[in-house]
């Protein structure tokens, strides 16, 4: 394969179409199974589309960055979820405002659950979420693990890897991201995976999610650019490796 195409090699130059600011939520405590890859993919693709990326981290106790154009957050261990709990509650109103206002967001696994109404553990204690998404999650003894293939109307086939024991059910206020073709997804009964609300994409899929699903990455970037500059002028990222990685991943066993 040639190495001369943009995005195939060489430190990618930042572009002149304007700055897009990506804020990572709690990367110190909520960043497991490669969720950092989502932030990296946004940063690089913003560049490959000709814009200038700005990647900011928000951790417990930090001042919240102004003017977030895209917000991403990942999964964590139980201990990580406890550490961020109070801080997240304190941020609930401003995050909700950003969400209602149409800020594109990607939340994976642990933060997907905490963006919902609550997480009820196996022992019956209830961890409140911030209620941006009309979903609820119940802890179980069963760990749902393995490769996942999801059919979506917006992003085509979505590929990833799930690893969770919380099971999530969707309320009327959200729609599923898609229908599971391989794997389990939100829960072991209804065949749905993830949730969509305004410009939020919520999902259980690690992998990381965005590298092999550039359509979702570009949805977040396009939405951010349209909100900020009135229009999105895409570049031409080289997605041949992504295509091939998708083809091979889709054929791997659960």
């Amino acid at each position, binding site marked *: 394969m040639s190495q001369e195409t943009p995005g195939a090699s060489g430190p990618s130059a930042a572009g002149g179409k304007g700055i897009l600011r990506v804020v990572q939520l709690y990367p110190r405590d909520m960043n*497991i199974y490669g969720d950092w*890859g989502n932030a990296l993919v946004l940063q690089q693709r913003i560049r490959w589309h000709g814009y200038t990326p700005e990647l900011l981290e928000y951790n417990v106790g930090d001042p919240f960055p102004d003017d977030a154009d895209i917000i991403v957050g990942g999964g964590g261990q139980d201990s990580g979820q406890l550490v961020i709990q109070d801080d997240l509650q304190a941020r609930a109103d401003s995050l909700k405002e950003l969400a209602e206002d149409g800020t594109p967001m990607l939340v994976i696994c642990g933060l997907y659950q905490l963006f919902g109404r609550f997480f009820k553990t196996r022992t019956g204690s209830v961890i409140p979420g911030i209620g941006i998404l009309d979903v609820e999650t119940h802890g179980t003894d069963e760990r749902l693990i393995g490769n996942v293939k999801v059919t979506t109307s917006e992003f085509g086939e979505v590929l990833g890897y799930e*690893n969770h024991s919380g099971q999530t059910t969707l309320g009327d206020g959200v729609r599923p991201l898609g229908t599971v073709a391989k794997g389990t997804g939100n829960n072991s009964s209804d065949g749905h995976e993830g949730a969509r609300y305004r410009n939020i994409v919520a999902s259980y899929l690690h992998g990381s999610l965005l590298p092999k699903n550039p359509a979702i990455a570009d949805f977040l970037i396009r939405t951010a650019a349209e909100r900020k500059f009135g229009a999105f002028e895409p570049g031409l990222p*080289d997605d041949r490796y992504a295509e091939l*990685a998708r083809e091979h991943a889709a054929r*791997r066993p659960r």
Partner: protein
Amino acid sequence: MPFYTVPLGKLVRRASRLRGGGSALPGLVVEKIDPGFMRRTLSTLPHGVAVVSGTNGKTTTTKMVVELLESQGLKVFTNRTGSNFTRGVAAALLGEVDWRGRLDADVAVLELDEAHAVHFVNSVPPKYCLLLNVLRDQLDRFGEIDKTAQLLQHIAAKTTGTVVLNREDPRVARIAETLTGQEVRYFGLDDSLLGTFPNDDDMRAAPGSPAPAGLPEKPSADVVLRKVGADTAEFEYDGGTVSTAMKLRGVYNIFNAAAALTLARGICGGAAADTNHETLLEALSQVAPAFGRGESLTVEGQPLDLVLVKNPSGFRLGLKSFPAGGYATMIAINDNYADGRDMSWLWDVEFDSLRAGGVDQLTGSRAYDMALRLQYDDVRIGAVEPDIAPALAAFIRGAKGQPKRIFCTYTAMLAIRRELSKITTVEVVS
């Protein structure tokens, strides 16, 4: 015990060897007819049982401990990895005991997989344990890092004598607080080497960010690794510093040597007068990685290094320990069950160090996942071929006259060794 356990087990063992079978069947037979066999046999050892556990480096460290103890004249019983742990140990015992069930050894040193830890230590409480680290590894099997830490804590709690802990891994060092009766010994690193050992907590912390507040002062360690040279290392213990030649490569392997030294000193009496320090150091300088944990071969007169990478911390350590300069590089990533199916971990590794030289060849069932990962780190990619045999041949052809290095997952390493054995001498493993 049933008088026939050992004779019957040995017969099954012999029969399954003749058929070319593994160790699981004879172990299974003994387990079924005499479940107390293992505990009873191991409990006769004068120095008891020592277990080595943790996410990274168990196999090589166990091998090192064995060699260090043998240098002190001890007869050591140890297990080979691969088969189901309990059955594997039972089968290995069958090979070692005499027909009356007596084991001719002073001490057992066993590599203990986290998955089998609880079952084993509940039935055979060890006298010593060495706990190496808790890193992201095969999380699709064990669930979460904190759970692994709990398993290691359980091993420590069941240990009757000395618990050896990694002072630099917070999740391991913290285990000391939960112990009451045991003697605790640490192995540690010089501050100047800490930077080469990112743990999973600070993996994403900004460079130079301060340590979390409220961390207690570090306890003093029995053995500290002070310096690592090209083929030497400096260890500090008993109030002095010794410099020794090392066959082992890679800082993290040499840190595990400090761990092995701490455990061996614990078992044979440390500073005791009857410890022969010269032979101990000589043994330390001679230890080599265990099979499949990285090795150096020669192909067409040039070195070819195999570096096993099975989790993000291992991959990061491998990239740091083996600088890319002057080497042709290949990466082989499989996602078979033994490798872990989840590819997320590739995104927890930074590949900037390969940017200058690029990667010449990618292979394995997830070669394109690896290509995609490198693309996002702006690393130049030569060729991609998921099929390992043609990829390896192309790599060797293309890098004629150059030293070569292959980073590979476990099953990819097995496939590469198989291919290489057709063109060069590769150690045969029983």
